[in-house]
């Protein structure tokens, strides 16, 4: 593969076309060789493509995760690539065969993980529909304890506890979604404190959290504010 110079530029060309088309099948085929994997990592691709590249970047993860789906797609793409160049397709076939053998060795693991994911997606759909007949997410005794800590004299009915449990669930969902929107805007992979703090600072309904989740400020800026306010303050 690496020894021959001629196939490299052609692969690059195919990559560009694949990225522009944003087709799942072709990108996966292109990503199988190691050299191409590295290139795809460096390239700034949209999020959806990032997902695909993540799956394809390491063969181990492919084995563990949904292994059945890419097999089918690869088969289709092979037939598509035949008219382009015979030599490349042969090599790709050989590599694909080896990978198929490896994947078949671990079908159980992939099945297990796929089931879990399907369940997760189903729950998401259920939430979207607005069904509220589910079990409560948080333990009721814990919520009762927290409320008692707030005001020991006041009694709280069972339905109020259920209402609070439900409200907390909605609050957490909405807050997480809004924070994730900032996470996406920053093009980060991981949802972090800064994104939550940004939501709190931007929306008025979250003002009650401003003392708990302040936006992080550099020491220089903090010192400037302090000096501007004067040493007589806090």
């Amino acid at each position: 593969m690496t020894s021959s110079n001629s196939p490299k530029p052609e692969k690059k060309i195919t990559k560009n076309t694949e990225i522009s088309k944003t087709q799942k099948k072709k990108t996966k085929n292109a990503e199988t060789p190691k050299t191409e994997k590295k290139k795809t990592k460096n390239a700034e691709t949209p999020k959806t493509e990032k997902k695909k590249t993540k799956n394809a970047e390491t063969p181990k993860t492919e084995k563990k995760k949904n292994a059945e789906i890419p097999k089918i797609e690869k088969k289709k793409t092979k037939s598509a690539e035949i008219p382009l160049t015979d030599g490349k397709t042969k090599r790709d076939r050989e590599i694909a065969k080896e990978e198929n053998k490896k994947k078949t060795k671990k079908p159980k693991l992939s099945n297990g993980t796929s089931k879990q994911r399907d369940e997760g997606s189903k729950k998401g759909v259920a939430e979207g529909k607005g069904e509220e007949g589910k079990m409560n997410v948080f333990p009721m005794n814990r919520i009762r304890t927290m409320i008692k800590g707030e005001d020991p004299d006041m009694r709280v009915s069972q339905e109020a506890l259920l209402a609070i449990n439900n409200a907390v669930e909605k609050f957490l969902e909405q807050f997480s979604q809004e924070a994730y929107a900032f996470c996406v805007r920053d093009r980060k992979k991981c949802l972090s404190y800064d994104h939550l703090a940004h939501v709190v600072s931007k929306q008025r309904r979250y003002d009650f959290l401003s003392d708990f989740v302040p936006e992080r400020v550099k020491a220089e800026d903090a010192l400037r504010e302090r000096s501007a306010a004067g040493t007589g303050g806090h």
Partner: protein
Amino acid sequence: MEDIGGSSSNDNNNNGGIIKEQDRLLPIANVGRLMKRILPQNAKISKEAKETMQECVSEFISFVTSEASEKCRKERRKTVNGDDICWALATLGFDNYAEPMRRYLHRYREVEVDHNKVNLQEKGNSPEEKDDELFKLSNRGVGL
């Protein structure tokens, strides 16, 4: 995070009740699981974000409960019920929560009525007040 812990411990001391540190927050596993469920599959959540969300959720409970509790005190009532929670949510800017919540409570009350009927048939008692009903239910540990 340390400051938050300090302030909350002060609040606990002021209340006079001793609350375990573990019981002050909702379990992080539940928080993390729910966050993962609502976000896209490829999204990653830092541990710091989960811990921050724990704090936010606990503060939300205190915020809503205080508002509802205040309303009950003004009306000379001793028990906070579901309607008070709905009212508090609407008052505090979470209007989009109040309507689904009312529907939720409506369904809950239907289930409660059915449950009471079954109990009445078995025991042959007639409850005098709604508060007593709810009190009994809470003692029995009835949960959906």
